[in-house]
């Protein structure tokens, strides 16, 4: 070891795995030099539940819709959405157009609630709890709307192969429009709070930068990729359901600021503008929604029989709040379960850019930078710092890490 290397003794800081109360657990091992992060290693799999195995060995294709819904508590529209798209393609089922529109409406409501939830979490990570409460209070409106339209706040169970299980009736429209108007009326306030606040700017500008080239190489998708200037959005590139009828543009931060930095601030811009875009899409859907049936095959037993006989394969892609979800399904004739089922959630690929994003950052910036990807696992509850040089070990818990982040905000605000 040369003298130069000796000076740069690094420490390893494992972060997680996690508090069971929040989202999904994950463990990060941060190699640090002083306050600076040099390298990161990601350990996934703490909550691998073998869901694909259950779909291939236990459930029939209709039961698997509800299993797909339980892959994630926040994205429980987009998983069944891309799953049924894949099955419909494999079995040659065409859903009625009205169902396509209802599907798009529910998916956009999910995007609004997910982005607002993220905005709250991000504010909390930098110690701005007033905004955290504000964002989550604002989010309640869309949660009520989701319950009103689908019958449930979380697992909506509205999807069926070949359509949807619940119609949007004429009487429901005023209530839906009322919620959309509410969001339009407070949008400017939200924009001011998140984009013009000095403290937020100081904590998020030039933090956690992901360059466009890195995003492309590491296959980063969704708002995290778009914030780095990758104009990729399934609703634009390969539109499914009602999205094919609208001209949807992928939102990149240069729309607002004229430049792409690819930092946390840009990720806020993208998500905020996407809330507005979602409201516009729902309005368009309500205006243009065709009349007609909502199911291609209303009898479940007949549908199941057709699926058991079907043979083929299909790929379903949907734009989840966090990026592209893809399901691959292969059906074999006379097989009760799916022959192959492969699910890819957006966080799967977005985790690969974590080492790039965290490199060269301070420990106090780790919570907000990691959370800015909106990984389905943003809580880091326990941190062990190992001093490699002296083998001294100290434990830093999530509270401590959070305190560091809050302190930094306070220092900057002074």
């Amino acid at each position, binding site marked *: 070891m040369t003298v130069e290397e000796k000076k740069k003794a690094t420490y390893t800081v494992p972060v997680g795995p996690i508090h069971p109360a929040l989202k999904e657990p994950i463990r990060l091992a941060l190699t640090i030099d002083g306050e600076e992060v040099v390298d990161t290693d990601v350990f996934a799999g703490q909550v691998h539940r073998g869901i694909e195995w259950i779909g291939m060995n236990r459930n029939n294709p209709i039961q698997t819709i509800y299993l797909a819904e339980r892959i994630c508590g926040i994205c429980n529209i987009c998983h069944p959405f891309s799953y049924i798209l894949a099955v419909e393609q494999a079995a040659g089922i065409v859903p009625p157009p009205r169902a396509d529109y209802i599907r798009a409406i529910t998916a956009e409501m999910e995007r609004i609630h997910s982005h607002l939830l993220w905005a709250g979490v991000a504010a909390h990570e930098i110690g701005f709890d007033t905004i955290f409460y504000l964002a989550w209070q604002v989010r309640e409106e869309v949660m009520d709307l989701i319950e009103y339209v689908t019958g449930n706040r979380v697992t909506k169970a509205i999807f069926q192969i070949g359509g949807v299980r619940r119609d949007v009736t004429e009487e429901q429209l005023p209530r839906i429009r009322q919620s959309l108007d509410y969001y339009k009326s407070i949008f400017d306030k939200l924009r001011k709070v998140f984009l013009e606040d000095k403290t937020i700017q100081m904590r998020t500008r030039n933090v956690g930068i992901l360059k466009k080239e890195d995003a492309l190489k590491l296959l980063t998708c969704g708002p995290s990729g778009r914030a780095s200037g990758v104009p990729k959005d399934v609703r634009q*590139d390969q539109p499914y359901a009602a999205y094919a009828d609208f001209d*949807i543009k992928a939102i990149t931060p240069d729309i607002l600021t004229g430049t792409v930095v690819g930092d946390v601030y840009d990720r806020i811009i993208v998500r905020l503008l996407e809330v507005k875009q979602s409201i516009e899409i729902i309005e368009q859907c309500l205006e243009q929604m065709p009349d007609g049936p909502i199911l291609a095959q209303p009898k479940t037993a007949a549908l199941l029989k057709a699926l058991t006989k079907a043979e083929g394969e299909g790929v379903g892609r949907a734009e989840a709040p966090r990026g592209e979800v893809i399901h*691959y399904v292969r059906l074999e004739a006379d097989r009760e379960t799916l022959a192959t089922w492969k699910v890819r959630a957006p966080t799967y690929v977005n985790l690969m850019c974590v080492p790039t994003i965290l490199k060269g950052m301070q420990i106090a910036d780790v919570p907000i930078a990691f959370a800015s990807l909106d990984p389905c696992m943003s809580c880091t509850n326990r941190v062990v710092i190992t001093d490699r040089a002296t083998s001294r070990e100290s434990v830093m818990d999530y509270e401590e890490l959070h305190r560091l982040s809050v302190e930094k905000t306070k220092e900057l605000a002074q």
Partner: protein
Amino acid sequence: MGKLTPQAIIDSFAEELGDGFFSGSVHEREVGVMKNKFRSLWIEVKKSAFRDAVEHICRLQEYPHLAIISSSDLGAEVELIYHFTIYYGEHLQELSLGLRVKLPKNELSIPTITDLIPGALFTERETQEMIGVAVVGIPDNRRLFLPEDFPEGVYPWRNDDKGIPKDMLRVLPGREPK
């Protein structure tokens, strides 16, 4: 290279790979009220031509998006499909490209593509642990999702004797595993 039509892409694969090219097909699907179409391509190649095929995709599109590798146990062989998308960024222009390669059970290995697409690492690691296909030259050979104490030589997505044995399944009391 400018944007090619789906059929021209298949022809270019046939020309580029020669003997290594098996088959290619285009699927179109109409969506929505306006019946706009989106298209997907399926291309099957021999294992020996697999690397050339991925290199060819990288020529068709700088930084192609690799969504996932799906793997199926077909009995005598294991089928891998590399789900790519190319030509993204414009309304309705994107193409899904499924690159299919079949591997006989006695020769389960595939070269890595992480040198061409660094982001392929996670899905290659998952393919190794879940279906037992060795990825030759993978820069990180660790497991991705399976725990460290999971037995060696058991691959959850296999349908043969290397799949999950019945005694590993936990079922409710009084129930038989399916």
